């Protein structure tokens, strides 16, 4: 069997009193496209930092291509895009891509990396003058320019507007077809659903699900009930019913439940006037909420 790209064995990481990871075992094979999904503070970034040797585990072991993640040979097979990082800002896009390529044994030409990231028009621009979305594209170009076997993207579309995100996802998807290993963290569910063939869901430092997007969705049977109402819906109205979550946003209420009929009947009984009702099947977002809803879940 081929060496896995990433192997974490019972990894724990504490920062002072904070337990960022509480025993994570994860094996990512070469060629897999994996999304690490979870709310803020779930341990996603810590996990990717451990994979890359940017942090050392408090307990357990991390291997990158069968080597220590701090080994230069292992790093030479990885391209990385981090959430917060600076560059030599006075250098132009092409100069930076050329520089980063030189760190790797078999880089692609800077032009190719720039084309993959869709930055042809900005290749002569100074990095410090790029817009937020262009900057993310530059980081992507820097991640792929060494033609690495695996790329790690930590929240690659964070801070992008909808359009830039869409375009950037297309860039990643196109790259994914080249058979490279891709590990990305995200808290955008659609991103994970669209890009990955495997989703690892993190919550509070643990892996709470690890499956394909469709399997994750199927773990939550039920419906999403969504309606508008002028009457405040009190949680007590729905006591005893099987609710996964309930969210209120202005006058709109969204309930995730395995018993939508009972919920609607109870609401009717309590005199809640319902407008604009929608009952739909679960999407990945619902599944995610259900998997991580320990805090939001109704006590009853």
């Amino acid at each position: 069997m081929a060496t896995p790209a990433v192997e974490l064995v019972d990894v724990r990481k504490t920062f002072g009193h904070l337990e960022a990871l509480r025993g994570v075992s994860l094996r990512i094979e070469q060629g897999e496209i994996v999304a690490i999904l979870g709310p803020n503070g779930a341990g996603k970034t810590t996990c990717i930092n451990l994979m890359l040797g940017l942090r050392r585990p408090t307990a357990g072991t991390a291997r990158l291509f069968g080597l220590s993640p701090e080994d230069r040979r292992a790093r030479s097979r990885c391209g990385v895009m981090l959430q917060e990082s600076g560059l030599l800002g006075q250098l132009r896009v092409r100069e930076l891509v050329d520089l980063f390529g030189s760190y790797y044994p078999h880089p692609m030409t800077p032009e190719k990396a720039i084309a993959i990231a869709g930055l042809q028009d900005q290749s002569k621009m100074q990095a410090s003058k790029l817009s937020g979305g262009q900057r993310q594209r530059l980081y992507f170009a820097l991640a792929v320019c060494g033609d690495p076997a695996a790329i790690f993207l930590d929240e690659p579309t964070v801070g992008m507007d909808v359009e830039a995100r869409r375009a950037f996802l297309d860039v990643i998807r196109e790259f994914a077809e080249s058979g490279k290993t891709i590990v990305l963290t995200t808290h955008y569910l659609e991103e994970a659903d669209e890009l990955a063939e495997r989703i690892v869901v993190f919550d509070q430092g643990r892996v709470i699900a690890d499956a394909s997007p469709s399997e994750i969705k199927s773990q939550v049977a039920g419906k999403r009930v969504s309606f508008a109402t002028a009457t405040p819906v009190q949680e007590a109205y729905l006591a005893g019913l099987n609710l996964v979550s309930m969210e209120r946003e202005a006058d709109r209420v969204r309930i995730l439940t395995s018993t939508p009929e009972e919920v609607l009947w109870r609401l009717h009984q309590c005199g809640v006037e319902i407008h604009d009702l929608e009952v739909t099947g679960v999407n990945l977002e619902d599944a995610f909420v259900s998997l991580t809803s320990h805090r939001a879940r109704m006590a009853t």
Partner: protein
Amino acid sequence: MSITELRLDVAPLPYVMWKQTRAQLLNSLRIPAFSLTTVFLPIMFFAFFGLPYVHQTIDHTNITIGPYMMASFGAYAVSSAMVFNFGIGVAMARGQKMDLLQRATPLPSGVAIAATVVNAMLFALFSLIALFVFASIAGGIRLPIETWLTLTFRLLVGAVPLIGLGMAIGYAAGPNSAPAVTNLIYLPMSFASGLFIPVAQLPTIIQKVAPYLPTYHYGQIAWNAVGAPTESMESAVVWLTIWTVLLFGLAVRFIRLDQSRKFS
């Protein structure tokens, strides 16, 4: 799992070193506020403090002021290139989290530091050449070719302890406080060491402190090259070696502290 199966290899280090040095140099050259101050400040100081008296001698000695002050401001030029490049440069790079992405790439951190040293040396060399050219044209200073070369060599090599000082500041101070901290330490120190005004003309109390400062002994190896020493070369070299060990020891402590905060 066998090694052949992995077929791992890495980019050749000399090539990476060349690319990194070139990129950093290009980046610095494009910050005119930085590159111009490094080159013009020493020339300006020499024009103010040395040029009017270039052919006179220092009181009660037969030392000509021109070459003496040129050596002083040469020492100032190189040491400030080192201290500021490392002090402020490293603190800013840390503030912008430049070290983070770099750490995740296959670029060895030793190469990045070595490239910074080479860059600081190149900047120092530029500013020295500019100062020497100015001093010989505007001040009519004529020295044997060996003297020019000895002076340049000593100023570059003797500045090593000041790289340690710069690194210690760069890893200890934040990006906003680094310029202030650097100036607060470096300016009084170079003044008290006689780089602006000869030590003999400084207040007695400062004259007593001067022989303990690294920049004083650094100045001595430069004044020695133009024939105006007040300390033997051996003594100056010993002092500079002690300071190198102390300042690099301090720098390594701060680097480890910074790294363990971020990467452990």
